[in-house]
């Protein structure tokens, strides 16, 4: 595959910009904490060890939660599953979106029309609501949350990738490879995909951030990763009532989620700026690509 390692170069360049450094540092600290955390937690995260909402002490540096469990241990243990599910749904959603987007752009015509109508239908569901809808009857299984969040990403990714791929499909080298008799699959994977990689990278960053927001949000509402297992979204909700007695039980997970998503978003912004060479925020890219249907409808009026 031509330029198979270009994306690494792009990542490296983005990581050297000021925003890239800031983003990687912030997100990296939290991700490291989430991965190492379960192994260094001083107490069992699911066992009551002291009084309900006990304030911080030397034995329990962040105090206790609503059931007297050690907040520090729960914070350390409560991140990895959230990150793992978010990574899974991002891979699924971006993968499916890239597939649909490139296929729609490459085949055009009826295929394009049908795929984009389906995309419109899924876009009508707010992402959190789509996940709630699937969880409502089937129950909050981890695999289901992964799939639901992944599916809810796919239409947005498909729109952006399709817009980028449309330009690529018009170019001479794609026509040339076709004339040489390459099958459609080879053209799409070998020629079109490498040329929309920077868009895909930005989407990966954006969708990973959104996955974390949605999955933590679902857990916060009580439909995500189920208790008694610790997780940051759920902890915030469980301990809201004890905010006065031991604010750390809420503040610690709030800070971790905030630092993580701010870091990821800043790094994604660095990728977008590096790859496009323009001063456009990442989400503006999505708007330009017609996420709201603007480009399509302006086009309709023109024609």
């Amino acid at each position: 595959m031509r330029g198979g390692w270009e994306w690494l170069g792009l990542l490296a360049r983005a990581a050297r910009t000021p925003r890239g450094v800031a983003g990687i540092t912030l997100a990296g600290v939290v991700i490291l904490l989430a991965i190492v955390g379960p192994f260094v937690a001083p107490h069992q995260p699911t066992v009551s060890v002291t009084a309900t909402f006990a304030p911080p002490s030397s034995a329990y540096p962040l105090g206790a939660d609503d059931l007297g469990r050690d907040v520090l241990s729960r914070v350390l243990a409560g991140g990895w599953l959230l990150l793992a599910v978010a990574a899974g749904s991002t891979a699924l959603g971006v993968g499916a979106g890239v597939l649909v987007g490139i296929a729609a752009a490459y085949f055009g015509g009826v295929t394009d029309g049908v795929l984009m109508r389906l995309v419109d239908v899924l876009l009508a569901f707010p992402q959190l609501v789509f996940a709630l809808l699937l969880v409502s009857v089937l129950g909050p299984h981890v695999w289901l949350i992964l799939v639901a969040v992944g599916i809810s990403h796919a239409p947005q990714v498909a729109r952006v990738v399709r817009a980028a791929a449309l330009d690529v499909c018009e170019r001479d080298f794609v026509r040339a490879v076709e004339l040489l008799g390459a099958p459609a699959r080879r053209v799409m994977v070998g020629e079109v995909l490498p040329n929309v990689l920077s868009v895909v990278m930005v989407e990966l960053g954006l969708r990973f951030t959104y996955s974390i927001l949605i999955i933590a949000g679902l857990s916060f509402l009580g439909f995500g990763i189920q208790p008694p297992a610790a997780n940051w979204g759920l902890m915030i909700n469980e301990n809201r009532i004890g905010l006065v007695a031991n604010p750390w039980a809420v503040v610690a997970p709030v800070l971790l989620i905030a630092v993580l998503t701010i870091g990821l978003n800043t790094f994604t912004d660095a990728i977008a700026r590096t790859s496009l060479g323009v001063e456009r925020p990442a989400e503006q890219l999505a708007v330009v690509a017609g996420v709201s249907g603007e480009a399509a409808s302006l086009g309709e009026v023109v024609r």
Partner: protein
Amino acid sequence: MSVLTARMGAVRLRGFGRRHPLVRLVVMRACLGVVTLWLVSVVIFAATQALPGNAAYAVLGHTATPQRLQAVEAELHLNRPVVSQYESWIGGVLRGDFGSSLANGESVAALIGPRVVNSAVLVVVSGVIGTLIAGALGVLAAARRDSWFDHVASVVALGVTALPEFVVAIALVILFSVLVLHALPAVSAIPPGSEPWQNLKELVLPVATLAIVIAPYIFRMARGAMVEAMESDYVEMARLKGLTRRRVLLLHAFPNAIPPVVQVVGLNLLYLAGGIVVVEYVFNYPGVGAALVDAVSNRDIPVIQFVVLVLTAFYVFVNIITDVVALLASPRRRTAG
């Protein structure tokens, strides 16, 4: 890209003649919207009622007795084939009969209707406040590009963009009602029978949360669009004509920055449709979002179906409106038409 097509469009529209393409666009979008909504209703039905497994068991769980199972099966028409179940559900929806709640037997329309108003108030008020403040800040940042204000505002916007609603909501609760200040209520339970605007104090925190969540996008878009407009030839021309800086900014650059901002405002209204779920839940605000969370915990299928249908219909409607408004607000199109 859209700027280019718009410019080409202006040229072509002039030659195109009398027939107003806008009317055609609106009709076409409305038809597409109806088709989309129909497919959406199929997805909603499939996810709640047509999935493998008995929905009645899922609803009742451990409390399933033969009598209760029968009652739920009758309410959802589960004893009939799937297609006929869908027909009777969608037929009811078209007649304005949304079924009755499995939790308490009340009609869904009576249960959720007042909540739709409450949620609409929340969405509109926070949408307007967030847009005005963020839009003004964006224009200001672009006008003073590379000043310290621009840099600080841009960095703050980038940070806040990524924050989930519940993190913002909890942070506001900590700051304004529990730990630092005790100025505002942490719970926004609007008493039944009274309207949201009669309980302004209760509205402050939910509205502030949603406004803060959408503001960064609008700020960044407004700033970007203004920067782009100010670098364009026509603004350069206006400047060279000797117009005052303020005139150039407000009468020449600003109108051209409106269409992309309208798009983002539309996107954010849509985002609010999802955002209200968490925010209403946090503040216990009696809207459709909180109703959805309750319904999902009770597996109250008719309520889930109705609320999701309302939210998706809102999406389709706002999408059409946004496109039309963005088109009408585009100065290029106006001069061409």
